């Protein structure tokens, strides 16, 4: 489904963000990506969503090498990937409904068809009653769930989350993770970058650990001292 083959990313000035990273995420698999800030978690997600391009190596999604994707095709690739951000990146002067509908509007949906899909997505994250609210009136956990609804509204096969619980307290974080689990059980591949180790350890999913751009651990994490 998602495969990194000896991927390195260095920035002008010599900073190496990723150093020969390889892994494969199976279809329908859920995994965590962890490590200190600056370890290269965000860089990895940016390489998948084509915000950045690798210096060497190949990123392959569903058998298609992303290096062959032309700039004009990038938007279409991103439509296949649901992305969730730490600061949730909602449009603050649009309602929750409009925010979730955005990917559908971009793809040309209109009217009842669109409303049906938006309501389904909001229902999945438990925010159906907030559809008419503005993001500013929502709590942090609710805003993050709106972000998740927006990411899944067009049913992408791959879901990426960058520190989705970064600003949330432990209870809310657990709620968010349960939402990801639910989507994973519906067949979506999920990759969550997070440094919330205690939460990850409790979830018992495959965990990849990055340190200074190198993959130092890949598998179930049993204790937090491996870092």
């Amino acid at each position, binding site marked *: 489904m998602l495969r990194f083959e000896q991927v390195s990313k260095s920035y002008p000035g010599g900073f190496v963000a990723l150093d020969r990273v390889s892994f494969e995420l199976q279809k329908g698999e859920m995994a965590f990506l962890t490590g200190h800030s600056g370890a290269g978690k965000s860089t990895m997600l940016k390489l998948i969503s084509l915000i950045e391009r690798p210096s060497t190596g190949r990123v392959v999604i569903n058998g298609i090498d992303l290096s062959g994707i032309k700039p004009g095709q990038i*938007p279409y690739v991103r*439509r*296949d990937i649901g992305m969730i951000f730490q600061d949730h*990146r909602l449009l603050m002067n649009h309602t929750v409904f409009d925010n979730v509908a955005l990917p559908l*509007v*971009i793809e040309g949906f*209109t009217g009842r*068809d669109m409303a049906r899909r938006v309501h389904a997505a909001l229902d999945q994250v438990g925010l159906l009653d907030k559809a008419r609210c503005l993001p500013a009136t929502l709590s942090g956990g609710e805003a993050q769930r709106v972000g998740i609804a927006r990411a899944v509204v*067009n049913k992408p096969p791959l879901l990426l989350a960058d520190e989705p619980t970064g600003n949330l307290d432990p209870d809310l974080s657990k709620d968010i993770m349960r939402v990801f689990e639910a989507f994973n059980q519906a067949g979506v591949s999920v990759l969550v970058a997070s440094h919330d180790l205690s939460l990850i350890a409790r979830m018992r999913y495959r965990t990849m650990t990055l340190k200074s751009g190198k993959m130092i651990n890949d598998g179930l994490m049993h204790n937090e001292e491996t870092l």
Partner: protein
Amino acid sequence: MSILFNGRASGASDSAPGLLQKLMMGVVTHLRQAVSSLGELWRSPVWTLVTIAVLGVSMTLPATLHVLVKNLQQVSSNYDQSFEISLFLKNDVTETDIATLVTLLQGDRDVGKVRLIDKTAAMAEFKQESGFGEAITFLDQNPLPDVLLVTPSQSKPAAAEALMNKLQQERFVELAKLDISWLERLAAIMSLVQQVVYTIAALLLCGALLVIGNTIRLLIMDKKAEIEVMKLVGATDSFIQRPFLYTGIWLGVFGGFLAFLVIELMLFWLRGAIANVTQLYQSGFSLNVLTLQEFGILMLIAIGLGLVGSYLAVRSHIKAIEPC
């Protein structure tokens, strides 16, 4: 169609059954963007009004000059048709000679109309108009020649001049006279004025283009975060830039209409003054206003300016905004 996942239905067009429905959805999307960009303008009224005013004024000046030139041309074209060649005949011609000449001229293809003013008639007219009155009766003999007024069949200065040169050679003609130099001067001045109008118009419209581009650039900068999010969820550049292009079109529509209103108001205001002047000169001159066609051209130019101005801003700035 999805690039990564072969066979995955993505987008409304994949799930829509018919071509007609796809077309309908496209139209709806466009309408929605057009209306929402109108709403965007409403949200930042000051910049919108300034831009519309700049566009309107820049369109008003050349359009007014155009109306002015048009009216001047109307005046001069009245004179254009009225040039005549005066043939002063030799003193010793007889009436038979004149009759022969008139018949001859009437057979000429270049000649439109021939009118004879004989000595006596000319004298009577002179007596009446000149104010010498009785003094003229003391003259022994009539000093005025017989005159033939020839109107060329083609009312062009060059044709008239050629005809004049030809008639000069006639046996009974003492002198042929055609006063067209002032007409030529008028025509030259008119074309000069027209060139000046076009140059000023071009300069003003360039200025308007820059102002529109700047307004759109500010709008884009204002929505930078929003554009980043749209790019992250898979919006193409053309989708993101379309509302801004519609904004440019709206600015053009309002700017053009403002220019039209200003011109109409100005003409309405001037009409009274012009009526006074023309009455004094006893001329049948009436002020020409903008025709429907000219109004259409004005609006088209304004909308074109809005579109091009916003396109220039959009092309460089939307590509530059990338999520990070």
